[in-house]
């Protein structure tokens, strides 16, 4: 007796919990892999999964078993030239018929490989965000795909009854009727004309047969025209409705960073998280996001991402040079009426003292008027310097478009953006 059951529609993710358990157990490994990946990837390239490799040794479940050595008998297949009593040198590397017991050789062979698997884009971002102490709502916003909006987009031949476009359907029905009846109507017109001619003749000269014939033909043609259906499935048109992502505007993000000698690689990595967060936020909200990297020491320069994060510079620090360059680039390439402009500045707080008032002035007059938001982080455990105080004085005037924070760890980055994200979520709530 057999029962055949179709289980294909049953859930397929039976292993989901076990998978989560595994990820949970090897969190530290995965986090390290993600951190490495973040430092290797471009900040515009955070949204894909990652291959994670864990040394097989770490994932092994230990059990008692025989080790190498001792003396043991083994039976093997495929003898070619051996005779009883032969002595053979032990093959090197344990391959072939060598030392280890059955099965163990291959286990240990695999031992050198890493245990690798893939985590999804969402999981990857989760790990990226982990130390950033993001509120859940914000995480959700960042993980979500763009919000979609339904939009009319012309007409289509298929659809549901509620989307029926009556006027358009009638119009195409009429067009079809006209087109299909054209030749018949032409012939009808000729026949009518002939009949008229014939009837206009003197009654004696009239040909009654021809008149009957013409009448018949006219009737036939009229019937034919009548038979063309008034409306056909072919005519039915529906309003076409498509999903479109809501944001359809452009944004540009300026990353400004001090690259003077005092900025260590570790500080730069932290700054990178800061930029990533802003970038991901912008990407959710704007269709197109561009990134401009400006690095500065005593003079500022627009560079590509690689150079921005990884080239080494020394020398003093003049922050105003970067703000000056930023305002020039805005003027030149990013018309504020077309672009939403965001600025993010990271520094260790060093600046040439006399330059700080200059910075505040530049920011206030030449940069902020065009900006949606400007965030400044100072990554240092030390006391504030002139730049911080200059910005601090400026902050009340700029209101919620400006945020500044001193941080020592990645978990302190989020508060800088709190205003930004809360505005966004409020907007969504409305």
């Amino acid at each position, binding site marked *: 007796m057999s029962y055949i059951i*179709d289980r294909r529609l049953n859930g397929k*993710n039976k292993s989901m919990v076990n998978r989560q358990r595994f990820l949970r157990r090897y969190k530290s490994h995965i986090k390290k892999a993600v951190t490495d990946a973040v430092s290797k990837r471009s900040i515009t390239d955070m949204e894909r999964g990652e291959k994670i490799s864990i040394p097989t040794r770490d*994932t092994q479940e230990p059990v008692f078993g025989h080790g190498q050595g*001792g003396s043991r008998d083994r039976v093997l297949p495929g003898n070619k030239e051996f005779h009883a009593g032969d002595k053979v040198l032990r093959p090197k590397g344990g391959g072939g018929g060598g030392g280890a017991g059955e099965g163990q050789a291959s286990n240990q062979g695999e031992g050198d490989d890493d245990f690798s698997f893939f985590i999804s884009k969402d999981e990857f971002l989760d790990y990226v965000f982990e130390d950033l102490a993001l509120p859940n709502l914000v995480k959700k916003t960042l993980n979500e795909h763009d919000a979609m909006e339904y939009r009319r987009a012309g007409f289509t031949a298929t659809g549901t009854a509620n989307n029926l476009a009556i006027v358009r359907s009638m119009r195409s029905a009429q067009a079809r009727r006209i087109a299909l009846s054209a030749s018949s109507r032409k012939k009808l017109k000729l026949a009518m004309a002939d009949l008229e001619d014939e009837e206009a003749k003197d009654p004696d000269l009239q040909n009654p047969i021809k008149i009957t014939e013409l009448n018949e033909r006219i009737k036939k043609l009229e019937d034919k025209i009548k038979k063309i259906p008034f409306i056909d499935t072919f005519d039915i048109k529906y309003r076409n409705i498509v999903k479109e992502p809501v944001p359809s505007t452009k944004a540009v993000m300026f990353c400004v960073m001090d690259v003077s000698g005092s900025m260590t690689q570790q500080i730069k990595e932290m700054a990178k998280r800061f930029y990533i967060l802003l970038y991901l936020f912008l990407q959710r909200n704007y269709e197109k996001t561009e990134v401009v990297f400006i690095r500065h020491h005593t003079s500022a320069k627009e560079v590509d991402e690689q150079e921005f994060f990884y080239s080494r510079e020394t020398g003093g620090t003049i922050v105003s040079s970067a703000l000056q360059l930023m305002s020039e680039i805005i003027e030149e390439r990013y018309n504020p009426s077309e672009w939403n402009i965001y600025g993010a500045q990271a520094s260790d707080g060093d600046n040439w003292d006399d330059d700080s008032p200059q910075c505040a002035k530049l920011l206030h007059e030449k940069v902020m008027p065009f900006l949606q938001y400007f965030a400044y982080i100072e990554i240092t455990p030390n006391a504030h310097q002139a730049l911080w105080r200059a910005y601090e004085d400026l902050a009340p005037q700029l209101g919620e478009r400006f945020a500044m924070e001193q941080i020592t760890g990645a978990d302190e980055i989020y508060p800088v953006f709190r205003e930004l994200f809360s505005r966004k979520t409020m907007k969504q709530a409305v």
Partner: protein
Amino acid sequence: MSEEEFTNTQSKKEHKPNRKEPISTGSEWTFELLEKYDKEIARIAKSYRLDTYPNQIEVITAEQMMDAYASVGMPISYHHWSYGKHFLHTQTHYQRGQMGLAYEIVINSDPCIAYLMEENTMCMQALVIAHACYGHNSFFKGNYLFRTWTDASAIIDYLVFARKYIKSCEERHGVDAVEETLDAAHALMNYGVDRYKRPRPISAEEEKQRQEEREDILQQQVNDLWRTLPEKEKSSDKKQHRFPSEPQENLLYFLEKNAPLLKPWQREILRIVRKLAQYFYPQRQTQVMNEGWATFWHYTLLNTMHEEGLVTDGFMMEFLASHTSVVYQPPFDSPHFSGINPYTLGFNMMVDIRRICEHPTDEDKEWFPDIAGSDWLDTLHFAMKNFKDESFVLQYLSPKLMRDLKLFSILDDDRKMHIHIEAIHDEMGYRKVRENLAKQYDLSFREPNIQVYSVDVEGDRSLTMHHYRQNNVPLNDDSSEVLKHLRTLWGFDVYLHSLGDDGKVIKSYSCAERNHSGDQLELDANQLII
């Protein structure tokens, strides 16, 4: 069915070639076709006296197959990270195309659950039905080990119970605590088996009823053991009480009953792992026979179908291609070699037994006087029912098959420079090769012999175990890791001595990290005494 009747049906098939129409010609399968094939295969299987549990054939997708893989083929299991690891491994390799999925998973349950993958062709589905639903199934029902050690009707219910119980433990005591206990129990899973004592079959309902009483009683018993400690009269008694009075081989059972610090729920988890180990124990001892039996029957059943004209020649070509790759044995010096293929050995032995019965040579008559010329079906059924891999090889491996597979036996002694070829497939060597091959399937040779030796009941409560080396084979590098798990369960220091053939300790392992949770231990110990 009597012998005569059987030969009767046989001759009918052979002499009246009553050619039927093929059931199907394309490679696409449908549920109707599955039913038709199953019906025909069942009919032929019955004519060969295959006695099976009812079949529950489930069609699943590749993803579901990977899920099934991850939980050792069981349809339901408790949650554990190691299953997740298994799943990720399978998924990664499958998606990269580095491995195919097995075409069948069959579960020793009543009804017998077999999975068919939807990607398979009609031919493969028929092959799997014959292999799993009639081959393995009849083996599960017939073989003495399975009959003794497992209760097919109760396993699914027991798994449901285990899953629920472990889930409730996770809710009460946290995932981490449960995971720690499970990890430790898994490490000792192979030592959670009663090798000689017959177990009582497990029944989920009883299990549930008894579980709560057991918790209390167990705890009481453990406490009793330790309560006797402070009484001075006993320690003045000169006679040394050794505990346990006899060495214990079932480590998990010993820990479940005697570990002083385990909570009742932890004992129950040990019990669950132990029961599962016991359930899988027969499978580990009958791999060659089980696969050989199933492969022999898919081969025989489908060939019979072909003789009857129920399947097309194209079908047979596809079937044979797949069958041949299953029973391929790479030689020992091939890069693909990874031990003796149980399908090859098992299938060839089954075929060989039939040959010895039907067309015995003089050699066979000398080596197998009792079966040469007997009814092959009777003999095969007898072999299937009453043997395990070790004894099956020892009993039935014929000189001809040793020659065909070119088997030879080596002695690999790490104290010598050379590997010694002990015996090959010749008159002098048949018995030696056969003996050594059989030993290779003996679990007590394959796994180190480790036993609980003593507990220092009156001192620091440390647990001492002995490992008895065979032929001077040492323990593997995992041992000290396993010992850490053991210590987690035992709660006090754990020692493992590896003893040579002469009974002298060659190497000792210990796990005695008391500093890291010393206070905790003291507290618990005091509680126990009160």
